[in-house]
């Protein structure tokens, strides 16, 4: 018997019991819709987290001081003064192909004042590479130069939050003088707003100035809070991390037996940590959805058993006019697969619709991957075959004599 005829027979059998077929499908529909919607939400949030982390500079490498507990007294990282400008020089001397940006970071908080307006914020001392490392973009004006760094020039760049608070009338800050801790700074540039970070920090509440200016004129220190570097690519970030670690260790004259007195972190690590949390969530949600698909499959099996019993005489007749066991097996198997695949199609439609509805009303990010749709279809087909097989086999093994006389 050809596939086309088998499909026709299965279709007609289902049409005969429309409501029953639909109710059986419902289990599969709900299961597939749940899988699609859950994966869309899970992957959507994963993608949006990744995108916002990348916007912070996905190849960023941070070197921070860390206590090496010299006398069993642990100190807070910020009060440790182990990172020096010599460390920067040591990294620079590497001339590594893996590193394409390097900047010291010194920051201190204080009050910024412009005329009658003031705003509590912090100033970050950096070198010009910082913009590239953090993927900050100039909105207006210019970046200070290496020469400004050399001269400890009193120039700065402002983020949007600072501008809004110091220039509430909306006047152009470029060229104006502001004061930070009573030191006057000329504003030479403004930054494109970045909004909140994933951790809820306002990334626009910043004042950037040459690190020499901050060190010499404000904090009067010679140590660094951290060193920011950027790797040329995400794949190069591991190699860059190793090179930086080695350079800083050498610069700190650490013996091989001694632990690092600093730590090097990459953004890639953070991304993978957060992504794995998010993937775990997706797996969990999908597993729950998968269970409902399993229940849908059991529903199919149940109905197929009923159907086989109901149509025992039909099976007997078909056998008596020449249907082989295989023909009967295929007939019922295709019926089961038809239920599950039709349920799968409706489930995909429902799942995609509900994912878009959720994103429309709740503004959650969603991502409907083709693979989740393909996987759902395959799983549906397999569900149909798996749960349809035993009832179909039961039908194919009926004795035609008994089946014909079945009441």
């Amino acid at each position: 018997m050809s596939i086309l005829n088998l499909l026709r027979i299965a279709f007609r059998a289902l049409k005969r019991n429309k409501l029953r077929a639909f109710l059986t499908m419902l289990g599969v529909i709900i299961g597939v819709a749940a899988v699609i919607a859950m994966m869309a939400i899970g992957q959507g949030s994963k993608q949006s987290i990744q995108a916002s982390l990348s916007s912070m500079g996905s190849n960023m490498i941070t070197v921070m001081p860390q206590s090496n507990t010299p006398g069993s007294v642990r100190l807070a990282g910020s009060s440790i003064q182990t990172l020096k400008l010599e460390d920067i020089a040591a990294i620079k001397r590497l001339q590594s192909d893996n590193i394409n940006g390097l900047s010291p970071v010194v920051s201190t908080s204080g009050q910024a004042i412009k005329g009658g307006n003031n705003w509590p914020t912090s100033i970050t001392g950096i070198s010009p590479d910082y913009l590239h490392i953090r993927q900050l973009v100039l909105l207006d004006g210019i970046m200070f130069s290496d020469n400004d760094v050399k001269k400890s020039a009193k120039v700065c760049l402002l983020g949007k939050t600072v501008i809004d608070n110091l220039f509430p009338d909306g006047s152009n800050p470029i060229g104006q003088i502001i004061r930070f801790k009573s030191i006057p700074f000329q504003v030479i540039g403004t930054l494109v707003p970045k909004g909140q970070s994933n951790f809820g920090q306002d990334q626009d509440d910043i004042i950037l100035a040459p690190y020499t200016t901050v060190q010499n004129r404000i904090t009067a220190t010679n140590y660094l809070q951290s060193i920011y570097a950027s790797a040329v690519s995400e794949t190069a970030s591991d190699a860059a991390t190793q090179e930086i670690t080695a350079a800083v260790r050498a610069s700190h004259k650490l013996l091989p037996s001694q632990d690092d007195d600093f730590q090097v972190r990459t953004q890639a690590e953070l991304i993978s940590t957060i992504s794995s949390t998010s993937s775990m969530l997706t797996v969990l949600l999908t597993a729950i959805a998968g269970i409902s698909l399993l229940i849908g499959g059991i529903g199919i099996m149940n109905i197929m058993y009923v159907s086989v019993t109901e149509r025992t005489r039909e099976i007997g007749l078909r056998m008596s006019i020449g249907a082989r066991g295989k023909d009967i097996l295929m007939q019922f198997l295709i019926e089961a697969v038809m239920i599950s695949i039709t349920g799968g199609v409706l489930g995909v439609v429902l799942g995609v619709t509900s994912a878009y509805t959720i994103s429309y009303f709740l503004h959650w990010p969603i991502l409907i991957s083709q693979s989740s749709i393909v996987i759902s279809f395959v799983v549906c087909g397999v569900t149909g075959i798996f749960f349809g097989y035993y009832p179909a086999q039961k039908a194919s093994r009926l004795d035609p004599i008994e089946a014909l006389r079945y009441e």
Partner: protein
Amino acid sequence: MAKKILELHELKREFVMGDMTVRALKGLDFEINTGEFVTIMGSSGSGKTTLLNILGCLDKPSDGSYMLDGIDVKSLNRDELAGLRNRKIGFVFQAYNLLPRTSALENVELPLFYNKEVSAEERKERAIKALDAVKLSDRFDHTPSQLSGGQQQRVAIARALVNEPVMILADEATGNLDTRTSYEIMALMQELNAQGKTIVFVTHEPDIAAFSSRTIMLRDGKLQKDSINEKPRSAKEALASLPESDDY
């Protein structure tokens, strides 16, 4: 010379039920030639049904041999038996066994679906021809529930004819019908027989047996009588002799 369609030799069928062995057929010997119209009769428990199942290749003998159109049925497996049923035998059942909610035409086409050698066009063509042969040309699209009992049985006969079997095997085919309709069916059977079809008709009604050319009587799993009916009654005449408006 008439060709042998059926050959039974020392045919036995035993059923094992727990410790007991029920001997349903205790050794049957007979032959049926092409073009014969044979009725198999017997009371309940005579082994009639068991014999029918074996003749229809739904069951196999425990002992002895059964040759259908030159093929030894005993040596075949399940799938081969199905193929044999498909090509050699046309079944007609007491309860018609038509597929519900399926048109007459598609019911008749059904056996051809299981015959790979028949194309879709040929299938339809042959089904139409078979329905013409049972005089139901105007009922192609009717479903069984829209047909009378006699019409349903005629659809079933068309279904038995469509595969051009060597033998039509009817199991109490008139059992559910009133006298007039029974006679109509028998008239059709006689007509088919006249066209050369071999018919084996299992019944318990002597009235029906009178229309056949040969009667085999079973009793207790054995052949009791095998008689040639020299002058079979014509079903057409019997039909004509029935009162015009009877209340059956």
